[in-house]
């Protein structure tokens, strides 16, 4: 049942993503509302999947990286849906958000039983570490979508060539402020996440390559987001530069996740 729910959820996300993309490029109004419906169905299926997983294994989604990914992807969508409620024009961002969600969700599939978490790791800090990182990442995913849309829109305004998506993408200042707010929301989470992560690194002296690389990326992401915020305040960096910083920062956080997934999938030792 759990596997079937997983497949259904993934398929629904793929469908919603396709519809959002169609809405963005072609702009037919019906695809817009259908994509919302598909996404809604995916969320329902997703929640059911998480619940079934909880019943099956009895653990919360903060206990290992795969469950965390499944939980995280849900947070991303919920964050997007919440944002869309107050700003319906941001619906087109679904074309960027949904694929990210699907990617994160699929990450949860690379599951291999690594046995119980080793004792030193198992501390009260672990759920905190995972939870804050999930929340932070969900915020950054939204910032990422806004940044991508910003760069697309800015490019069109600069090249003075307007495709159909120009009509449907929101105004630059809206995208800029959504991106800023999302980074502002995610940054404290990431900070706590990086600090708690560093505590383990000190305690465990891990020597497996993907993990130390992951920590490196985690730090890099933190530095990038810090720079995005700091430079905006100090030097008025906004718009394109802020968007590029956000984009890179989010990719770094994805790299961290990738490190964990690779380790647990046993790909690299």
């Amino acid at each position, binding site marked *: 049942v759990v596997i079937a729910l997983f497949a259904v959820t993934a398929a629904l996300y793929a469908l919603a993503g396709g519809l959002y993309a169609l809405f963005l490029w072609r702009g037919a*109004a019906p695809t817009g509302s259908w994509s919302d419906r598909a996404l809604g169905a995916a969320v329902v299926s997703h929640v059911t999947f998480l619940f079934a997983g909880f019943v099956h294994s009895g653990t919360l989604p903060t206990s290992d990286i795969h469950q965390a990914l499944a939980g995280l992807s849900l947070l991303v969508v919920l964050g997007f849906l919440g944002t869309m409620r107050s700003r319906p024009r941001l619906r087109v961002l679904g074309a960027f958000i949904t694929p990210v969600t699907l990617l994160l969700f699929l990450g949860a599939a690379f599951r291999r039983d690594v046995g119980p978490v080793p004792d030193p790791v198992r501390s009260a800090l672990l759920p905190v570490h995972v939870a804050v990182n999930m929340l932070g990442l969900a915020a950054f995913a939204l910032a990422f979508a806004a940044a991508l849309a910003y760069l697309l829109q800015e490019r069109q305004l600069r090249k003075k060539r307007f495709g159909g998506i120009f009509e449907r993408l929101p105004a630059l200042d809206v995208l800029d402020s959504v991106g800023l707010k999302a980074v502002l929301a995610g940054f404290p989470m990431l900070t706590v996440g990086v600090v708690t992560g560093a505590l383990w690194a000190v305690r465990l002296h891990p020597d497996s390559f993907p993990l130390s690389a992951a920590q490196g990326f985690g730090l890099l992401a933190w530095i990038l987001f810090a720079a995005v915020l700091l430079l905006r305040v100090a030097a008025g960096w906004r718009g394109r530069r802020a968007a590029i910083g956000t984009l890179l920062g989010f990719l770094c956080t994805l790299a961290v996740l990738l490190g964990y997934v690779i380790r647990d999938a046993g790909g690299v030792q």
Partner: protein
Amino acid sequence: MSGPNLAVVGMSYRTSPIEVRERLAVSGEALEADLRKLAEEAALEETLLLSTCNRVEVYAGTSTAPEALERVRRWLARRAGRSIDAYVYEHRGEDAVRHAFRVAASLDSMVVGEPQILGQVKEAYAAAKSSGALGSLLDRCFNQAFAVAKRVRNETEVAAGSVSVSSIAGELAKKIFADLDGRRVLLIGAGEMGEQAAKHLRKSGAALYVVNRSREKAEAVAQEHGGHARTIEELEAELVLADVAIASTSSTRFVITPEMMRGVMRARRHRPLFLIDIAIPRDVDPRVGNMDNVFLYDVDDLEKVAQENLSARRREADKAERIVTLEVQAFEAWRRASAVTPTIVALRERVRGVLDGELQRTLPRLEGLGEPEKQALERMLDAMTSKLLHRAIAELKAGAERQEGEALLESARRLFDLDRAEASASPASDARDVAVDTGARAKQIPS
């Protein structure tokens, strides 16, 4: 003819000069009065009068098309005080429906996709409705026309993108700043086009500041558009505060240079600035356009956008025409089906009436019949009617799906002499409404 059909007589910007159209234009309260006069004088069963600055059109629902339309033409000519035959077009049946749909969807407009026409058609519809000139045919036709207009607006981009340079400036501004309310627009110089663009932005709620070499000129322009005047010395300071700047001076040198803008952008902490250079020769050094967060558009850029929007609209118009074609077919199917119903009802009544007449004549000669026996006879006549007409009615109904059905309907009405029987019963339009109603019930009787 099998029942009333639609027709339109009219003239538009395509076929007639403004001098003729303006004599025919009516609006507001005069519209309803004129409509009543028209319906009466031209003896139209249903009518709707659409009058805009680009067209004057009379839509009619009539069973006697050629004569009725001739009367409409004469009415128009009398009002125009001259012969109008050279300017008038006429569409009947399906073509008239198509015309109504295209007009409402703004496909026949001078600027395809302009939104005002739908409101004007709705006004004409409301006037016709309240003056009682609207029958079921025109009512249905125009309600569907509104639906077509909505579909075209939602499913195509016929109305997307401005085609005038000054409104494009406003449209682009809205892609940089979602809300222009409270934003600052700086008008540098006082070219005509610059003023137009500023006016557009002002309408969206932006505050206007005017800079000019001559203080008096700045104040005059500011006064006219409800803005604030500033001196040319304040240009840099104003550029720091502005969100949109429109340059249209007659200067032969660049008024805004990269050196100047570097300082300005730093001072404004890189808040985005939309720079529109409508001056010829240009006021803004084109290198300014490469700076981060500066979006520079000159006249050529805006013209290019206008041209692209125009051709995009034309492409979208093809899509819209396909929607119109589908909807016309839907309307015609409805019309044919609704023309069949009164015929079927009349056919049943005719046959049943004849049988009943014979029964009444025979009954006195039949002795010893009680109530039950009489009722049995009645039921027999009902059954005979149904069985006799079963095949004919099925064919008529099936015919409604096709165009040939109209000929079939015509034959049925002639063979059973239905038109005369109906005409003697009640006025045509009343009979029609009632007939549709009973027709719905008639369908429930197993036939």
